[in-house]
């Protein structure tokens, strides 16, 4: 079973393949020893993608909402490095559609810290204009950070891509929340973006990824809740 304890910030401290990390209530991962904050699947400009592609006028505020959440984490933790774990933009033209002030805020994130953009399937080239380093994957304290989980068991892998969400049941009621999912060997992050949906952790896409018992770390309002398999339900 994964070892976990609540951390004073409302997060959940777990032992991930021998490294101590904190799962934050925002959905970000905090690797304290490396002063590194990791966020996955922000899908910036998803709203404007629907307007451009389908003429569906979703509110054009998802990017600034996601940035607000990111600012909150940066203020709380002052990370020296910020890793975007892929699918940072919803599509290849997303960066060009950024509203002026949103683009400036994003560029401003690089002030005083390293930005690292791991590429994902939605943004295979990474950003063209924004500062930071574009990578496929990176290794940190024995952890491998990449966008899409590799098939089979991958001890130490930290990935996104699947947008995990948990339906948690207690008594007659249930609630659905974004979540981290881990077995203590590998970790999948929830999607951080304001307009991103979630895939139930019991879906077959998660099958074969975990050897040990599943722990879903569900995002509450102020706190991350450790949820065992028995409290999880399909949708």
């Amino acid at each position: 079973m994964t070892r976990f304890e609540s951390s004073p910030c409302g997060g959940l401290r777990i032992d991930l393949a021998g490294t101590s990390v904190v799962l934050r209530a925002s959905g970000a991962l905090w690797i304290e020893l490396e002063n590194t904050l990791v966020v996955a699947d922000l899908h910036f400009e998803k709203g404007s993608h629907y307007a451009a592609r389908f003429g569906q006028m979703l509110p054009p505020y998802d990017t600034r909402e996601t940035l607000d959440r990111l600012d909150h984490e940066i203020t709380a933790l002052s990370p020296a490095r910020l890793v975007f774990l892929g699918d940072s933009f919803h599509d290849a033209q997303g960066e060009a559609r950024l509203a002026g002030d949103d683009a400036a805020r994003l560029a401003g994130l690089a002030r005083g810290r390293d930005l690292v953009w791991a590429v994902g399937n939605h943004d295979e080239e990474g950003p063209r204009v924004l500062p930071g380093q574009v990578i496929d994957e990176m290794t940190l304290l024995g952890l491998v950070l990449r966008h899409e989980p590799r098939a089979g068991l991958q001890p130490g892998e930290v990935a996104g891509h699947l947008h995990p969400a948990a339906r948690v049941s207690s008594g007659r009621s249930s609630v659905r929340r974004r979540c981290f999912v881990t077995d203590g060997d590998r970790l999948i992050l929830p999607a951080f973006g304001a307009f991103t949906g979630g895939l139930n952790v019991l879906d077959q896409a998660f099958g074969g990824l975990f050897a040990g018992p599943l722990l879903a770390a569900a995002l509450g309002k102020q706190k991350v809740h450790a949820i065992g398999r028995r409290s999880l339900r399909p949708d």
Partner: protein
Amino acid sequence: MIQLAAPKGASRMVQRIGRANHRLDEPSRAIFVPASRFEMLECRAAADAILENHLDGEPERTGTLDVLAQHIMGCACSEPFDLLALYEEVRAAGPYSALSWEDFEGVVDFVSTGGYALKSYDKFRRIVPGADGLWRARNAQTVQRHRMNVGAIISPATVNVRIGGGKRPSRQGGAPTKSGAQSAAKPASTFADRARGGRKIGEAEEGYFEQLAPGDTFVFAGQVWRFNSLVGADAFVSPAPDCDPKMPSWGGSKFPLSTYLASRVRRMIYDEQEWLALPGDVQEWLAWQKLRSALPLPGEMLVETFPRGKRFYLVCYPFEGRLAHSTLAMLLTRRLDRLGVGPLGFVCNDYALSLWSLKPMDQLDLDALFDQDMLGDDLEAWLEESFMMKRSFKACALIAGLIERRHPGQEKSGRQVTFSTDLIYDVLRRHQPDHLLLRCARADAASGLLDVARLGEMLARIRGHIRHKALERVSPLAVPIMLEIGRERAPGDAAGEMILADAEGNLIAEAMA
């Protein structure tokens, strides 16, 4: 015509009876089958009202802006329109006669670019003015997408009812159990369930299955079934021919009883002459109520307080319908919380509502508690966070065309739409709280889901006319509402956090064991 349970309105009843017969030269006949003593009163009142030809009507409605948005898009899809001519045409319709030019322009802007303060969608406009000054749809694809989504009635999401999943009675919803056999049972995955799913026997409202716990039985397509699980868009059931069914609940109870019928029922309770037309057990019930507590005057509202078990109860009888009562109960709960009474829960039906708390409520200033000012800030603050606003916003977003249920080549299920409109609601609320669709959703929620207007009239009516009885124990009139306690679940965000904390507690207990 056999009318099970209460008719809710005299006109509604006349229409229902009238269309049951299908013969012009014969009168229809109806039998009322009330399911409780209160319903007996309501059935009697409805029958009397029909005999006296006192029919209650629906109030006139003001046209909503989401429907107008769909209309404007529809006009643009059929032929180019002139802005001013369309405005005059729309105002010729009664419900829109008071439509202001500003609102009309706002809706046109919404249809075109989404109506956002951040003007980033100008280059993607759905309707555009041409060189001739007339507005038209952007292109053929825009027209096609609009036509696939026309309609102003949002039908509830339905699920397929399938035979299957019976071999593994899901433990979903069951009380936590420590039995070793239970915990050893291998949880099957969702696709295994799906693969096991067999013949489709029909479709039913998703909301209906949300009320059922696995193992509950119900009647569907003329047979009794056991509910096993709800997976995606499929409800899995197995035949249960030997079981007593838990009957399906139907939409009828969603309508509040008409104000006219409610006032008749209030008079009937007070006027003992009227009792003579009622069955013996109902007369006896009212007589005991008079002895044990009180019968309120027609203009009064009765409030009873009494202890029961380790709790203290407050029961009142506004007769304003379940919607208005639920709203009142939510608002009273906020007040009681501030007064330090420790409210724990409430339950409502069409006639009464009951609240319970940790501390007694006998000494409260009831006139202050029921003061109309609760419809101000308290209502606003509560509404913004409530699931009703999200439900209302979803309907507005679908009607106004912000979200499409169908688009060429793929169909979204009702469930997915729920999820995405919630995300949109949260983001929009934070970044443009005065957006047209949020205004629309607030107005819709206030009338359709909360019955705020009716609650307001009721609070004005009972001002200074609250009759309080502090009792030692439950009164005869309170019995029906007390029996409903435990049948309702309290939805909402606070409940969500409690579920998470509960499940976490279970895991920790498991780890320590």
